């Protein structure tokens, strides 16, 4: 279980991205974080694996305090948390294979990995991971030769290499068209059914309805809603997204 307690983050510029955020994520949940751009979704996800250090508060994962973990321990924790990014964050000039293998860095022999040597077992894992997302045939290509949807699948495969217990997905489909959005989210849903907890930030409400087992809504760094997707009625929607907002359905685009 992941417990987030009184989490706050103030950037050096003075921006308060998160204000006293607390919630729990049970193992096996597909938790979706919603909110406007700039509401603190990305900061929240990055605090969980400490790509960003929170200013205050605690994050406990199975009673281990992530926020207090020293560097070596933090790396041990991170390798159990896969992450998928809006902009895919692949090394564009490297091959798909190398990008996927880099997901294994937390496990690999540090010296061997530095000279780019990977064991047969790790290579097999990488091919399997690519196979799971249906692009094993692209292993030898340069990452930037792939389409957006394919690049995000490489991103998912890279996360799979970590044998994660938790996957953080930061708007994984915001850069993709609606049809591809479903295919990526279905992979995440599949992984979730196999027991991996997923915390995912999303924009489109119909995607939230379709995939979320629970929803947390952020507005200006504060939690304004917590519950199931079905509970988001018109009033709640206005509260989260503001009076001006109109619901856009991904399927209608």
């Amino acid at each position, binding site marked *: 279980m992941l417990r987030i307690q009184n989490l706050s983050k103030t950037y050096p510029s003075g921006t308060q991205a998160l204000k006293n955020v607390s919630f729990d994520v049970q193992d096996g949940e597909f938790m979706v974080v919603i909110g406007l751009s700039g509401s603190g979704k990305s900061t929240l996800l990055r605090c969980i*694996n400490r*790509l960003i250090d929170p200013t205050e508060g605690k994050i406990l994962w199975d009673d281990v305090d992530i926020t207090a973990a020293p560097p070596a321990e933090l*790396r*041990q*924790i*991170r*390798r*159990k*948390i*896969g*992450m998928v*990014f809006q*902009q*895919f*964050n*692949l*090394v*564009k*000039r*490297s091959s798909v294979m*190398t990008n996927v293998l*880099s*997901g*294994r*860095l*937390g*496990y690999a022999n*540090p010296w061997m*990995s*530095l000279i780019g040597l990977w064991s047969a077992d790790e290579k097999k894992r990488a091919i399997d991971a690519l196979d799971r997302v249906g692009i094993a045939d692209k292993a030898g290509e340069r990452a930037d030769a792939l389409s957006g949807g394919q690049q995000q699948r490489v*991103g998912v495969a*890279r996360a799979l*290499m*970590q044998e994660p217990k938790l996957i*953080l997905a930061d708007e994984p489909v915001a850069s993709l068209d609606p049809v591809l959005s479903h295919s990526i989210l279905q992979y995440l849903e599949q992984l979730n059914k196999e027991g991996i907890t997923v915390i995912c930030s999303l924009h489109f409400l119909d995607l939230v309805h379709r995939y979320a087992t629970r929803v947390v809504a952020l507005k200006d760094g504060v939690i304004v809603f917590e519950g199931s997707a079905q509970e988001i009625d018109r009033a709640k929607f206005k509260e989260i997204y503001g009076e001006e907002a109109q619901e856009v359905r991904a399927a209608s685009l």
Partner: protein
Amino acid sequence: MARKRRKSAPPACETAMTASSKPTISALPAALLSALLPGLGQFSARQRYRGVSIFIGFLILTMMTLWYADPRWYFSPVLVWLWNIWDAARQARSQKNGFLLPVLVGLIAAYGIGWQVLQIDFSTADMNRATHILRPMLRPDFIQERRETNEMWVEIFVPCGTDVPTARHEMDGKVAIATPDCAAVLETVIVNVSGMWPNAETEILWETPIGNARMLGGNEDAMLVQNTDENGSLTVLIHVPSLALAGAPDPTLSLGHRVYFNQHRPIGGYELSFVGGEVLKGALVTIAMALMATLFAIILAIPISFLAARNLMSGNPVTMAVYVVVRTLLNILRSIEALIIAFIFVKIVGLGPFAGMLALAFHSVAALAKLYSEVIEGIDPGPIEAIRATGANWVQVVRYGVIPQIVPPFTAFTIYRWDINVRSATIVGFVGGGGIGFLLIELIRISDMRGVSAVFITIAVIVIALDYFSAKVRERLV
């Protein structure tokens, strides 16, 4: 009419327009002011920018004409002055744009005066001289026929003294005799040689005791060539060359001069000529110079480039100050041509490829560091974040997140730099930096146009090959 149109415009716009367009001066005084000082009329008519431009333009045109041109160009400032008076009156009535006439006059004057200053005179292009220089260039001095030489000589004493030995020389069955045994400058000597190859061209050449060769044909400016008869004998009447004693320490001292008889015949096949060999050696030195200079430049540029990368240095005021200083230094260094740096290094370490290499390296450090730092500034932080998220340690993040992003562009820029350095290395040679450029300037000095042509071809081949190679490699990297 104009006033009416202005009234229909929105109020905010009207104030702006009246402020700038309301004439403060009428046409006649404006014209008079501009006649007195070009641009002043326009300036007074609230056309400040125009007025100043006209003044500066008129000033430059006038100075240019007075300093450089002959009197027939004096019309141009006068024309502009007249236009300026007319324009002032026009501006006082209503604003008009248009600079066509003065710009046209200015351009014509600039080109006309430029023509005159450059002393352009196509009649000096002498076709005979050009052919004399260009014809040998059609036969670049790379290779020559392999040939063997049959050489013979006889010693003659100039001028006559006491105890002059007999002018007779025997060698390998060949005999050469001169009559008389001694002679003064310009006196006639009969020389006879036998036992040479029969019916073969024989070059006859004078050599002074200090080893200077003097030609005996024409007005002592052409090689004297005679054929031997069917027995291999040859008799020829020569004059002791007028310059036989030039450079001699004591012209009254009787010393042995030699008359040489040289025969050549091909023995089949070709060989690298002396100049051709020097050209190839020079080319090798030049390429090595560029390679070494690039290597030293890389070693220094990599650490410097990190200091010159804004995204790494903008963290706090101290590093920002370092960034500004490093960037400024790089910009200054980069603006000094390698050729100019080479002058200084030739003074410091002496003539030769080492000086050239240092100059190239110096210039390249600045150029490469700037390019590298721009690569570092362009790094995508996304992949670095993603690699950190996998639990990788710091070194692994650099290896998998940073290096793949910077190595290909670094390599591409480095090859590009090497390419430039090879070209520069030839130029740097001109000022004593060694390599093929140094050879070229020497060959031009002694007017060996066949050698010059060989150098041209070699440089062209190297540059074209390099261009192709570097473009191909960069294509694959970027």
